[in-house]
């Protein structure tokens, strides 16, 4: 594993031209250290996805540069990018995105063989990883036969099989129940700490804050301060204090809500 730093400098992404031009990301700078767990949060449309795409070498910035381990990847030719993704990055998705026709073992082994490993070796590596993640009994199951948590663990094994420097996770816990989600979160943290890999997570899930080293708030394409954030007690959404849609003071505590509906519900709860 290379001692990688992923560095984003003054990166901007604009879509469209002229009247329909949209700036998804404005002059964002970000450095990610080895072994770090970074959580990126923000409202929908804040540019989180665009940011993730650029970090993951799936999208080119309009302005600015991205360096991986000192090498400028934002300028690389299209042909070199898949190689970078294959060897340096690991991806984990909200929808798991396992190949439906392959078993758990085959899903992981495939990515290893894409990176050049021979079939036997790829399968062994895959088996090791899956076993480490507690899936020895599920090696030959098709995704449709796996639970959500199991699928995500297969996805994580797949992401790790080529020894990547960085893992990117897009809403990894969104389709999992809370207990399983927490397990996955802890798993991601242990991967970062024990294996020295960077983990970048994009999520709405408040609980991930617990395992993150750094929490970044992206709004309107820029990083904003987290300190002015509050959590809506009813729905768990992060709310900007100053711009909260509704607030309520109760027993000396100021609550911020994402909407009047949540506040109304909160009041109802209090009444009971």
């Amino acid at each position, binding site marked *: 594993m290379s001692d990688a730093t992923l560095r984003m400098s003054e990166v901007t992404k604009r879509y469209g031209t002229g009247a329909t031009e949209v700036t998804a990301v404005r002059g964002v700078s970000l450095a990610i250290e080895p072994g770090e767990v970074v959580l990126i949060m923000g409202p929908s449309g804040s540019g989180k*996805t665009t940011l*993730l*795409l650029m970090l*993951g070498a*799936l*999208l080119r910035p309009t302005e600015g540069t991205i360096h991986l381990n000192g090498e400028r990847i934002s300028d690389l030719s299209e042909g070199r990018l*898949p*190689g*970078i*993704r*294959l*060897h340096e*990055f690991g*991806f984990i*998705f909200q929808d798991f*995105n396992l*190949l*439906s*026709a*392959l078993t758990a073992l*085959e899903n992981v082994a*495939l*990515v290893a*063989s*894409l*990176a050049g490993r021979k079939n036997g070796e790829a399968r062994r590596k895959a088996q090791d990883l899956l076993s480490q993640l507690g899936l020895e009994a599920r090696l030959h199951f098709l995704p449709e036969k796996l639970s959500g948590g199991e699928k995500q663990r297969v996805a994580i094994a*797949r992401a790790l099989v*080529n020894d990547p420097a960085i893992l990117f996770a*897009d809403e990894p816990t969104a389709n999992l129940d809370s207990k399983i989600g927490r397990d996955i979160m802890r798993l991601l943290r242990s991967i970062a700490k024990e294996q020295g890999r960077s983990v970048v997570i994009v999520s709405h899930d408040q609980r991930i804050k617990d395992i993150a080293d750094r929490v970044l708030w992206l709004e309107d394409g820029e990083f904003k301060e987290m300190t002015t954030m509050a959590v809506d007690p009813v729905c768990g959404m992060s709310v900007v204090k100053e711009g909260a849609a509704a607030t309520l003071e109760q027993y000396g505590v100021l609550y911020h809500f994402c909407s009047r509906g949540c506040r109304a519900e909160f009041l109802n709860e209090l009444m009971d």
Partner: protein
Amino acid sequence: MMRLAVRNLFQNRMRLLISVGGVALALMLILSLDAIVSWIEQRVAAYIEASGADVWVSQEGVRNLHMASSSLPADRVDEVAAVPGVESVTPILYVTNVVAMGEERAIAYIIGLPEGAQAGGPWNLVAGEVDPGPEGAVIDQGIAEKSGIGLGDHVEILGRAFEVVGLSGGTSTFTNSIAFIRGQDFSDLRANPGVVSFVLVRVEGGASATEVATRIEAEVEGVTAQTREAFAAQERQVVRDMSTDLLTIMNSVGFLIGLAVMGLTVYTSTLLRRGEHGVLKALGAQNRDLYLSVGLQALVSVGLGLAVGLAFTLLLGAVVPRLVSNLGLRVSLPSVGKAAIASVVFAVAAALLPIRQIHRLDPAMVFRGK
């Protein structure tokens, strides 16, 4: 990649069935027509090859049996017999005519055999006598069965009643059969004494049939002499020349259809796998990895289609003769080779279609929600 290709292919049974089925059917168009023609070709020469003659002597310029007629003056027979290397000669009379069995009329090649014929008679006797004898006839067993005729019954040939004294096998083709009567009866009925149709020659042991044939042509006036193989080849040639254009047309159509079906199924299945292809690309797979997967799928589909098409054609070969009288299929190696090549072309062409689709696929779409 092979594993992915195979797994993807078999994941959807219906689509697999359609692509394999389509290719199989298209190939069957090619294979079965080829096989029918090939069978006819073979049957057409059957009599000549089984006749027992090494050399066939005919009227000069006549190189065929079917759809031809040959007349030689009877004195040529002795002239041929005198040629060195000739062991025996059997003059036969031949005409395409009708065997009437009750109400049924069957077109048949009537062969008039001399007494004690050394060649030219039935080669696969199923029942009764080989020698028709005076006022007797040996007719094809299949034809007889179809009309409910058996040994001892009477049929009408060249206007006279003959008693069926023998039933032969292998003497029928698609449209007609062979019936054997005595040469004497033949010439009585057909007038024209002093004329024979063909002279069947057996050469002496150790002599070369080709040489004897050449000698006969040189020494006897107004005849054409061909070895058995050459004569049989000429017969097959007629069938082949007649059917070339037809085969070309049908083969072309079958080919086009195979292309269309394969193209359609590969294109469709790639389209439906868009999401998974996007994921693979995001994970770092190259375009060529995906082309390989799609290409392998196409190859396997087509391979299966070829196997199924071939199997069904062979099956037809077993079934058709039972259902349709006097028709069969004979699958030849060149035909299979042709089908195999066509299959490869199907696979390659089909795999080329989705290249643009795959190339254009933006892996970023995986993150944007479907």
